[in-house]
């Protein structure tokens, strides 16, 4: 469903994403893990068509995002990490606007808006301007907007940031059901427990490159990690030694 071929992104001489190739099949919940600045967000934004790759290409359901952007993006729902929404629209108006961007209107959209607002417990807020929403409510609204046109795949950057435990649980269930019905989810996260509990497959990104990919068991096997937890595996692959040093420094400060 999502295919990245030799994807590279340069910012001047800095290589943010370095020749990444990846295939996320239909019906899979795929997690991108990596330390801050590893290139996860850049990769996801290239998949969503917001950034243009310096090299390589992104295919969504066979359509190149930068060659056939309209048909590729019709399949996609994107949820960014920072919930910037038009402050002067109400929640319902925002969802109606997003549906319009996907060419949808009428009673079907109105029913879908009501359904999504109900699921995310925003019904009583639907006629309030977004400027009055909390960070978590904005995040819920953006998640609703990504689902409004019934996408085939969802690309989501740090899905749990700002959500209360109830909403986080709801989102996990929604993603699971979405994948079970044949949808595809590609998400980036720092929360290793979330990744371990939710993801069918993972890729660990470090310095713009994929350093490990597959199921958690595959990755353990590839790196001879025995029964190590995902956290230990992650630290081993992304600079655990530095973490230990940091812990010592912090310990010394107390």
């Amino acid at each position: 469903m999502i295919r990245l071929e030799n994807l590279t992104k340069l910012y001047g001489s800095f290589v943010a994403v370095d020749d990444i190739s990846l295939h996320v099949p239909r019906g899979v919940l795929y997690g991108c893990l990596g330390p801050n600045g590893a290139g996860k967000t850049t990769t996801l934004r290239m998949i969503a068509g917001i950034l243009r790759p310096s090299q390589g290409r992104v295919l969504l359901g066979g359509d190149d995002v930068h060659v056939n952007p309209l048909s590729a993006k019709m399949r996609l729902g994107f949820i960014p990490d920072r919930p910037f929404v038009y402050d002067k629209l109400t929640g319902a108006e925002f969802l109606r606007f997003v549906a319009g961007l996907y060419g949808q209107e009428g009673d079907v959209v109105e029913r879908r808006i009501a359904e999504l607002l109900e699921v995310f417990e925003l019904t009583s807020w639907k006629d309030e301007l977004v400027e009055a929403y909390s960070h978590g409510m904005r995040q819920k609204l953006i998640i609703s907007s990504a689902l409004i046109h019934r996408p085939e795949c969802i690309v989501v950057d740090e899905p749990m940031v700002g959500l209360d435990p109830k909403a986080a649980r709801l989102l996990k269930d929604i993603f699971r059901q979405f994948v079970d019905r044949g949808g595809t989810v590609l998400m980036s996260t720092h929360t290793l427990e979330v990744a371990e509990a939710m993801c069918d497959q993972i890729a660990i990104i470090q310095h713009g490159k994929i350093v490990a990919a597959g199921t958690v068991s595959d990755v353990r096997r590839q790196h001879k990690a025995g029964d190590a937890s995902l956290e230990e595996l992650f630290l081993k692959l992304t600079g655990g030694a530095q973490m230990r040093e940091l812990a010592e420094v912090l310990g010394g400060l107390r």
Partner: protein
Amino acid sequence: MKQPSLVHVLQPKWRSALQRLREERASGGTGKLVLLIIVGGAFWAGVFGVLFMILRFLRKVEELGPLIPGKILGLILLSFIFILVLSNVITALSSFFLAKDLDLLVSAPVDWLRLYIAKLSETLLHSSWMVALMIVPILAAYGVVYKGGVLFVPYAILAVLPMLILPAVVGSAVTLVLVNVFPARRTRDLLSIIALGAAGGVILLFRVIRPEQLARPEGFRNLLDFVILLGGPTSPFLPSEWASQAIMGYLRNQIDLLPLVLLWTTAAAFVALGAALHGALYAQGFTKAQEGAERFIRGTLWRWTIGWALRWLPVARREFVIKDVKLFFRDTTQWSQLILLAVLVVVYLFNIQVLPLRRGEPVGFFYVNLVSFLNLGLAGFVLASIAARFIFPAVSLEGRQMWLLRSSPLDLKALLWSKYWVGTLPLLVLGLLLTGLTNALLEVTPFMMIMGLTTMAALTLAIAAQALAFGTVYPQFETENAAQIPTSFGGLAFMMTTIALLAGVIVSLWQAVYQYVRAAYEGRPVVIDSWMLLWFAVAGALCVTATIVPLRIARKKLETFEF
């Protein structure tokens, strides 16, 4: 605990400003700097030149001559004081209550007095720099005409500085009280309307009383009344009058320290009072400022009106237009500018109506047509200023939401199309209204009326396209205040390009119009020949090119945006 210095508290501000300068320089900003210096220098030279000539002339006039320059300076400084108070009230709301660094500063162990002085300095700087720059050529002209010498420079600074401090303190105090009464976001809305309403009212009043009549002493009952009026202070309790007295006293070699002492002691007393008020009210006001302006909106009006009128459009374009219109009318800082616009139109038409054109025929005919023709340039300039304020920021204002637009299947052409027409249609109505009503007031011939309306329509399409294109090529995604966006380099480049376009179209059309006016003036039949048609075609081609090329450039630029 040792408190951080003021420089330290303001560090994020000045370091960010320095970094922006460095980035500008790194991205080839030298050209921009040179351009800014040239334009700024020309403006300064213009102000200096005009005032220099007036003052030099007045010095030679007996009796009245010595009185008028002081009066002019007093009036200039008085108007600056009003501008400064309004500007400080609005700026203080951002710097004291809405700025992003406040959470950090208020939660840090910085004492309230230090915070007050730091934020007051920030407010003063942001709201006064433009007025301070304007004062330079004005005082330079006074200094040169009255041979003030080198020492006049520090003396003038000494006289003007407290005049900037006082409105900053007053503005901040007014804001502080207002925020304690209303939520900050509601206060911002309220202030925008009050400020613009007041500004509009003052402009309207000033124009309607026809101050040009004051320039004619014969309008006064007798010379004595006039001299008495000039001799008395304009507003004896206002710092502008003290500053004016201090400066004029120095220039006439009659140094009186009282105005200077009054200025500085009042400024010091006001800062102390402002600090006391801040100490008493800031904590409560800051808490209130965190409250949102709760608004419950159904928003069906636009859906029923614009949505219905645009039902023939593809849904994405229609929703985009509805969204843009809603955002405009729900943002008080945006729609309230329409108050000024309405005042501008009234003043504009009033000016045309009071022109003394019809003192005698047939000269009147020539002047009427000349004014009607030149009005195209003036109306074009007005439209360019409005486009700079409303259309130029259109793409920049999408900045934070661009993730949504770029990840959705919205065609960039549709985005540009919506932005273009949402801005162009009201501009077109205004342009045609200005031209049509002006021509009707001037009672021009049908030829001039049709030519004027057609030219204005073509110019509006081109001006809007240029505003949108320059706004796309030089976007300001980080600026949240739409009113600040046109003050960038891109805004300046847009204005200069548009002025060039206006000049090109006016010069081309003049070839044709002159032939018409001359024929009509001499009583010959007007023949539309190939020469006239050629120049109409040149003007048309200029407008078409200035519409299509910028829009294409804007579309290409949009495709390259990365977020």
